[in-house]
């Protein structure tokens, strides 16, 4: 089989057409603007309601307000909460002048980290199945300088619906398909639960559901799209942090928003997943972040495994590590700035 230009990596003009859809609607996607996310988790609930995704554990994780932990087979939207003793642009957290000591964020992240390390799958359970962190040894609150600032970032994460979707590329049964909307969907009646997609995904999104065995992830509400409706999460989002629409139009809107934010002093604001020349050829679900991707637990340079087929297994190993990093980095300051 001769591969078409950029079928494994790089920019693709017509992703649905390349997948064989002749007459098809424009590529649809999500623009998640984290600058207006209020962390209400309505997206998580609406997603589960519409898609009948099961509850995945009644566990207090101690990760700020996040008790979902990560994306997984039973959590297709995940709102991350990042508490850091740092300033967010012109935002004034009101800590100056208070009788405070050192920040507690590192100690609490340390406790969460050690709990995850003790878990059978190193935290991979989160978002997939019930997981009880149990009581873990306390990390003493650090001595150090007084905390002087604070920021609380929130971000609703979701499957990226990559232009070059590693999950789809490695799927041996054809269960994973590219839809006419350019999105990536698992056909549950075909999936045999081999799990190749799980290790292939550079974002640690797709996973198998215990007791079911098959792989599950966000479908961008394919059934709703077919019916002319927007996805459940976007519909439920009260502040339009999650926007659904034609990807080209979303890109334009996002660039305008980015410009406005930077003008207002959020120098570190950036788009994530909109660049067609990145390692996955750009994403169908992209984000406006207020800092580096690592702060949100996102891989800085995601790469589709199939870009370098011989190195695929190595990439999978990195992805597995990335999953752990994703869960942890959300609660720790990036080590390098």
């Amino acid at each position, binding site marked *: 089989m001769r591969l078409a230009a950029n079928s494994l990596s790089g920019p693709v003009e017509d992703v649905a057409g390349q997948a064989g859809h002749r007459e098809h609607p424009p590529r649809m996607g999500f623009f998640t603007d984290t600058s207006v996310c209020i*962390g209400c988790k309505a997206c998580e609930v609406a997603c*589960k309601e519409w898609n009948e995704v099961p509850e*995945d554990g009644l566990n207090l994780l101690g990760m700020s307000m996040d008790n979902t932990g990560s994306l997984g087979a039973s959590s297709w939207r995940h709102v991350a909460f990042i508490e850091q003793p740092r300033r967010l642009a012109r935002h004034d957290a009101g800590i100056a002048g208070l*009788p*405070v000591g050192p920040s*507690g964020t590192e100690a609490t992240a340390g406790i969460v980290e050690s709990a995850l390390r003790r878990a059978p799958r190193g935290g991979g359970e989160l978002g997939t199945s019930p997981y009880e962190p149990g009581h873990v040894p306390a990390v003493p609150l650090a001595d150090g300088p007084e*905390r002087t600032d604070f920021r*609380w970032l929130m971000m609703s994460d979701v499957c990226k619906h990559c232009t070059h979707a590693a999950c789809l590329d490695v799927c041996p049964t054809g269960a994973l398909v590219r839809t006419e909307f350019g999105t990536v969907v698992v056909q549950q009646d075909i999936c045999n639960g081999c799990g190749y997609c799980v290790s292939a995904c550079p974002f640690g999104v797709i996973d198998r559901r215990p007791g079911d065995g098959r792989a599950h992830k966000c479908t961008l509400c394919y059934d709703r799209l077919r019916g002319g409706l927007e996805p459940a999460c976007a519909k439920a989002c009260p502040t339009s942090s999650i926007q659904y629409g034609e990807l080209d139009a979303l890109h334009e809107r996002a660039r305008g928003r980015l410009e406005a934010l930077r003008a207002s002093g959020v120098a570190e604001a950036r788009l994530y997943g909109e660049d067609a020349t990145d390692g996955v050829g750009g994403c169908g679900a992209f984000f406006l972040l207020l800092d580096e991707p690592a702060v949100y637990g996102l891989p800085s340079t995601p790469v589709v495994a199939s870009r370098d087929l011989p190195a695929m297994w190595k990439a999978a190993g990195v992805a597995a590590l990335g999953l752990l990093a994703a869960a942890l980095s959300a609660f720790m300051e990036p080590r390098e700035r």
Partner: protein
Amino acid sequence: MGSNMAEAHPVGFQWVMEAKEKGATVIHVDPRFTRTSALCDLHVPLRAGSDICFLGGVVNYIFEHDLVFRDYVAPYTNASFIVNEDFTDTEDLDGLFSGWDERRTGYDRSSWQYEHEGEGGTLAEPSTREHATGHSCGASGPRLEGGSGPIRRDPTLEHPRCVYQLLKRHFARYRPEMVAEVCGTPVEQFLKVCAAWTSASGRERTAAVVYAVGWTQHTSGAQLIRTAAIIQLLLGNIGRPGGGIMAMRGHASIQGSTDIPTLFNLLPGYLPMPTAETGSDLATYLAAVKADRQKGFWRLADAYMVSLLKEYFGERASAENDFGFDWLPRTSGDHGTYRSVMDMVDGKVSGYFLLGQNPAVGSAHGRLQRLGLANLDWLVVRDLTMIESATFFGDAPEIATGEIVPSRCKTEVFFFPAAAHTEKEGSFTQTQRMLQWRDKAVAPKGDQRSELWFFYHLGRKIKALVADSGDERDEPLRALWWDYAVVGDEPQAEDVLRRINGYDERSGRLLDGYVELKADGTTSCGCWIYSGVFAGGINQAARRTPGSAKDPYALAWGWVWPANRRILYNRAAADPDGRPWSQAKACVWWDEERGEWIGHDVPDFEKSKAPSYVAPPDAVGPDALSGDDPFIMQADGKGWLMAPNGLEDGPFPTHYEPHESPVANALYAQQANPTRRVYPRPDNPSNPAPSEGHREVFPFVLTTARLTEHHTAGAMSRTLPYLSELQPALCVEVSPELARLRDLEHLGWAHVITSRAAIEARVVVTDRMAPLVVQREVVHQVWMPYHFGARGLVTGDAVNDLFGVALDPNVFIQETKAATCDIRPGRRPRGPQLSELLARYRARAGISSETGTARDATPPGGGRDGEQEA
């Protein structure tokens, strides 16, 4: 302020985010850093319960920096009115106003009145009002004799006894340094708020205030909101677009449940409930509601009341029988929910209905609530799920302590499954006073029925039972008109809304608005402020035309009481001459050619009354309103910077410490609100006031709130997996500093203790909590969400068990947003050991029934000379 809008009202918060995107500065003043704070420009911390001092500081800043919007304040408020020379301020009586009556621990308000021109000078309150309390007055407040004509005023605002000068002096010591000392808010941070808030004032700009139960659930809650109203009036931010004070309500249609009240002291439309004093006959009642020579639309209360009686009793109501007024029950005192619970404990109440309420978890002092429920003969609970208030006899914490013995609990519980809002039709009234009709989406299953069904058939059956009783006392029930349209066995909600709208009884025509109401029995109306919701025979609440550039107020979306006016008192959106203050803030204005008020909103003013109109001195009611009297419901047509009547605790808001506070009042000898309702009884202990010593026993400030992921007492969220997994456990948030002090571990257990209860929770250590410096000492605050109880997919101790019962004197709201507590690592003891732990704490703190309940704490004779006790 007093609201965690992003978390508790996420859907409404979209408009705040939109405003921010358009350049608005958004400030969050709150004891802790919440999801709201994260999205605002500025978070300003303060000590829970110190809000009046903070806001009073803003008032002071406005005066100090000469930032009063005088063009607005002089004509539209009572700033220029001269007050009785007998009035004495808290500045001179160390925290009390003139008129304090120690015997009945309340005020005689006669010295707070305006001075009047002509003979007699001051017009005292009529004698029938002497013992009236705020709760018996309805929304009109007590009456106020005289139109604006006879009130003596000084338009220059210089007279030492004019409201303007009295207000200025009242808050003169609320300087930024005092705010810092009392609230713990650093001076710089406080000044940022003052600068931003006062800059949003004047012709071109406005500011809006949003609050929720963070303000109301205090022993000075009503006064707290009044302080904000004073600021907004001084800045000209009332009745104008982008201005106002927005009360975020606790659930869907809580606004509706005060408009058509579930409150013991109100009839529909904020008419007061007749009392034993005012209820002898209709004329006496009306005389207590309104004054003959009063200005404004409350003067027409007779039309509202008679129309209500016509709706209640139909043809049985006539002029000959006082329209059936005598069939209404009378109140004889405090019949509020907390008084009733104590009466339940004391065996004075035999039966109780609970609808959409879970007091075993959701009300203050859970133990008292449960012991009350356990001492009834019968209890009816209607809810979506089996709640703790229906199962207390089997799962209350008092079973472990031996205080409730299931086999001996005599309460017979009747549980009725209720239909959800998606399973019935009806209207919701939201925070903007907007009625929105909703249709039934699906039929309720099994025995689930609507509230309307329940009460209609209950009423029908009771009427049948007493139809032939011959007993005089059953006459009100026999006279009650109860003939609602029914399809199958379901009463029709639209028919009820039509009766609320009201009819012309002669023609059977639906009324178009409250101005059509008559006092002669020819109209009926279930709630006068809702009249017009069926104008033209159309269900206006069901309209769904979104707003547009031409229609920014979306006037055809739903229906807003009164008369579909979106901004109350919007006459104030135009200057005294009737012109918009600015093009940017145009709302309604006077059109000289057409000779009427026009604009984007429905004018909240008589349509053809010119701005230049001066009411003749002998006019009364609406006719007495001049063209520059925007506050058409007020008895003087003006916005009240000073409230000469209507409040129990003073004409000006004053900083009092919460009922339970770790510090002494830095401003006055008077520690707490002297008129707050306290209930000194062995089963309702209070933590000691600082002057009583032992403050080290309960050294921390306790405050509670909601999480986005749960709903109030949890019946609608703890039972649902998708919500329960998002917040699966009761937690207590503490700062890293308090965690160090008390050896608390992140994700470990801790128990929180007050003199009422000890409850346990998982610890969350977070930078979002921070200590404050208050009066040179570090004060730590402890926060908990109150959603958990014994039942559901996720369970936990009930946080409201920690609180006692101490109430605001005006509205009987409990103080559950500020108390004192201790916190210790580890789980709480079980069973009898729990009771012993609490007994030890009470002994250490020297607590008796009377502890913390002293009301007048000023030195005899008043005066500020005595040293304050620390």
